[in-house]
């Protein structure tokens, strides 16, 4: 039986499986009964406020912390009993650190040996890929934060892992660096690498993630595909004309509810109106009320995230 990323014939093996994962530190529950599954090639964005349980979950995934309860399977196996499987995993947890007195190349050589690799070309390749060629003979202690982060990613990517676990990988990178890393991650995903990524730069997660999970106070409160995310983001049509009160009346006659917000412009939440703004525009022009402003406003991931967490707080409060 072939047992790589596929289990039984036709049945796709999950790369990450967490079942009822719980971690307690004395009386404090850091992670509470989390279950999730991630398949090959997916990019899973893991969102949460500081202290929500993201890093604890990632450390349980990496076998650094033992779960109080629950199971962690990587590639369908308990990785703590299968050490060789760690070569299928690359990781970077929080801010990356390297041996300060070693050069970039020497730092990579250390992990080349620790990962039992044999082809030295892997070091050259990853140096080139992460644009570290100019710094390969520079000691890590002299690197900028951005280049240190690249070195951390180089360590995680050098062995071409099937699963990448990244905690805040964009930290310290300049905008050009963020775009480069985003492209690298997308390319890896296309080649079948599964990526589990936590980041506080939510727009990055929105651009990258094929699936998003939101963790709050240790619980996974929402999990959705990127297509579902598009549907769940609040949208509204914003209109401003020379006589907004007449527009409200006009829309009311067409059974479209609208209101004037605190900035004095019209907001419409009607799904049909939002999906066909050109029809609304035509009606207004025909009525002699050509719009000065007309656009569809879409909630960003930050707002969606905060709204989701607030709803959860209300749900908990309401019991």
């Amino acid at each position, binding site marked *: 039986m072939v047992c790589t990323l596929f289990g039984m014939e036709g049945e796709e093996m999950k790369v990450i499986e967490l079942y009822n994962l719980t971690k307690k530190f004395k009386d404090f529950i850091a992670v509470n009964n989390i279950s999730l599954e991630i398949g090959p090639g997916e990019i899973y964005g893991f969102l949460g406020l500081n202290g929500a349980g993201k890093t604890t979950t990632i450390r349980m995934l990496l076998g650094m912390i033992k779960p109080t309860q629950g199971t962690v399977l990587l590639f369908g196996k308990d990785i703590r009993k299968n*050490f060789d499987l760690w070569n299928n*995993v690359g990781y970077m947890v929080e801010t990356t650190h*390297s041996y300060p007195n070693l050069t970039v190349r020497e730092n990579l050589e250390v992990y080349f040996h620790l990962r039992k690799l044999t082809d030295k070309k892997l070091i050259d390749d990853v140096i080139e890929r992460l644009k570290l060629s100019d710094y390969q003979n520079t000691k890590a202690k002299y690197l900028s934060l951005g280049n240190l982060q690249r070195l951390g990613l180089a360590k995680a990517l050098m062995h071409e892992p099937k699963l990448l676990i990244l905690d805040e990988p964009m930290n310290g990178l300049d905008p050009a660096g963020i775009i480069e890393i985003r492209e690298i991650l997308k390319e890896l995903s296309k080649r079948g690498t599964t990526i589990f990524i936590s980041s506080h730069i939510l727009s990055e997660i929105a651009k990258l993630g094929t699936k998003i999970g939101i963790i709050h106070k240790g619980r996974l409160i929402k999990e959705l595909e990127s297509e579902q995310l598009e549907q769940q983001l609040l949208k509204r049509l914003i209109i401003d004309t020379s006589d907004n009160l007449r527009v409200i009346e006009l829309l009311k006659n067409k059974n479209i509810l609208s209101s004037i917000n605190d900035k004095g412009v019209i907001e419409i939440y009607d799904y049909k109106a939002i999906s066909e703004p050109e029809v609304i525009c035509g009606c207004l022009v025909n009525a002699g009320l050509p719009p000065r402003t007309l656009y569809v406003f879409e909630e960003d991931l930050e707002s969606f995230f905060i709204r989701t967490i607030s709803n959860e707080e209300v749900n908990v409060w309401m019991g």
Partner: protein
Amino acid sequence: MDGLKRAFIAELLKLKHSNVVWIIFAAFALGPIMGCLMIIILQNPILASKLGIISSKAAILTFSADWNSYFSFLSQVVGFGGIIVFGFVASYLFGREYVDRTARDLLSLPINRTKILNAKFFVYILLCFSLAVSDLILGFILGKALNLTNWEYRILHENIQIYFITTLLALALGTPISFFALWSKGYLAPLGFLVLTLILDQFIAITNIRYYFPWLIPGLYSGALGEFKSLLNIWSYLILAFTCIVGYVLTIFWWEYTDHI
């Protein structure tokens, strides 16, 4: 075996460009240099009278300007100074992963965690023996330069045997230090523990349990306290071995099973 070998190579690589290693070698070299200084004082009575304190110290150590005295002094350096310097080595090798904040990168690798620590222990042994050998070579050079008397194969053989057994005994006490380095995630606690053992040495040395206090045994074996060496017995060595094993097991157990937060 391949995993252990690769981890060992990685550990050696980490020592590249390390200033700490050279500082430790330089500090340990002070031993033979101090011995050399005392011999110069003994060989120059006029100078000895001008430097009263050092002269008295040389007299206390029943020092004479011959190879036997000098070798014996080198063994005592390893018996007491070795515990301190080897402790620094263990503290550095095991604590640096937390000081450099690279410990997390050693936890999820295709080489199991015990092998990574064993590689560190092998590097520890290698470094400590290198330190001992370097002091011995320096001792030979300085002894030759001072024209020490009584150069005999028998004396050489006996003293080198004592020197390396003392080294081995001192080296065995590195395992509790490695545990404290991992447990406290840095250098401070292991070095604090080292200082504590040195303070305890002072008190216990004047009691009858000195033969069973692990941190005094290498010094006693080296002959530093004269006739007390003959009073070391099998229990003394068993207690030292037990301390070493407990330190090793605690180090491995902690690294394998603790939550690395």
